[in-house]
């Protein structure tokens, strides 16, 4: 039986993918090299790691408004996270996910960066507000 985590209903299609987890925050403008698809900000906990096709599990959304356009642009080149699973997002990340049709959920019971580990296989159902950890 998979572990089932409940969250607030989200945005985007249901997806299945592999988690990349960190106790850090997120901004597409501040933290990413969007050309190569890796975290580029030297002080980010995921610096140097590829985010393309991964389910990013992070704490909060931070910083500027650019992410609202950028997820759509990143998706058009196929270098975008598969889904965003956060403790709490700001409007920009939700707006960017809605505009770019990228799956996003937040507001779990407990700290989602503790509940999920890097490498976990996740199935995310935003309409139902459910994340399943398939390997545990």
């Amino acid at each position: 039986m998979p572990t089932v985590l409940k969250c607030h209903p989200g945005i985007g299609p249901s997806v299945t993918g592999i988690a990349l987890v960190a106790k850090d925050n997120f901004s597409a403008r501040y933290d990413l090299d969007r050309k190569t698809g890796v975290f580029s900000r030297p002080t980010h906990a995921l610096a140097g790691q590829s985010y393309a096709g991964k389910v990013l599990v992070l704490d909060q959304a931070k910083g500027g408004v650019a992410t609202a356009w950028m997820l759509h642009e990143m998706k058009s080149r196929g270098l975008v996270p598969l889904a965003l699973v956060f403790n709490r997002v700001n409007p920009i990340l939700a707006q960017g996910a809605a505009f770019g049709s990228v799956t996003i959920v937040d507001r779990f019971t407990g700290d989602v960066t503790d509940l999920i580990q890097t490498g976990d296989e996740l199935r995310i159902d935003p309409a139902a507000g459910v994340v399943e950890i398939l390997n545990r």
Partner: protein
Amino acid sequence: MRLTEDERAMLAGAAGEPRRWAIQHQIAVGEFFDAADLVPVSQAHIMADTESLGEAGIRFLESLAAAPETERRVRIPTLTDPRGLDFQTYKRLGQTDAMAALEGRTIAALKSFGVLMTDTCINYQTILPPTRGEHLAMGDTGVVIYSNSVFGARSNFEGGPSALAAALTGRTPRYGYHLDAHRRATRRFQLDVRLHDLSEWGALGGMIGRDCGSYWEVPLIEGIENAPGSDALKHFGAAMASYGSTALFHMPGITPEPIEFAGSVPDTVRIGRAELDAFVTAYGATGDKVDVVVFAAPHLSLVEMAAVADALAGRPVHPDTTLLVATSPEIKHAADRMGLTRRIEETGAIVAAGICFYQSYAGEMAEANGWKRLLSNSAKLVNIIGGYGYRPTLLSLERCVDSAVTGRVV
């Protein structure tokens, strides 16, 4: 969400495809944040620089702009945030003709919606300052935090697509800072130090923003004896929003809203000289070669333009260093008229209008010009620019200028 008859008609496509797309986007975002309905807004402000848009975003704008005029015209006064490129300065900054072509397409699309091309992040200082209680759809974090905090207006962070949607429908989902419940203080800070200049106000904002670390935290800041003034609050708020995603702060005696806490009164975090200096020193690089000095983010007021001209005092900028000043087109015109632009540019510095550096292909400019060490008096810029491969240092305006003249961090 509860929809009016007009809103249901838009959703059904009766008002054309641009408004159908807009309201459908707003409903998706509104439901995510449990909005009960949409609230009419009096201004929208769109961030749409070409670096963020990319080819895909520009094509999206062009596809909406192809609708008949009655279907694509914005319903409320709609302004633009800084653009990616100034056609007068782009070649000197190492930007390319390909970037200029993207810029031209984006401007054409935005104009066809009836957007006013203000190209600034200080519209609250220079275009139409918000008023208390006014609901807005502002598309720049610095504009939102200033509008909410200093004026008592009501806006969430509205990214480019959402601000455009608000412009097309004349409303926005009613959640977050449109609601009284979210505007009460959740954190408490006490300032035990007197601040000297704008870079220190930015540093203080950065520290509080980093500590808050969430869009949903509202800091109360006590211990500020004298009203800091518009430019100080501008740097303070912009840095707080940048480091922490913060959208509202309260300062007793300075900001207009009554001080209430969301729950029990939180513990007070004290900030003194040692904490402030530690924050600034983390970016220190005394003695290093200076590649580029940037005054931007937020755009400079006319008063800041005069301060740069006075600090330069006619001294030439070092030949191995670039000094860039970015302001709004309105302030640039005023600076031209008052001789400030001439006084700054005759030292070899560049005055750009309508761009704001970090949203102007900062990575490509670094590569084209061999820039690494960047100096600024903007804590917001110093925070952002590391992700583009720069090594940033935060100094006062005067020390930034002295460093530009000597070519070394002083």
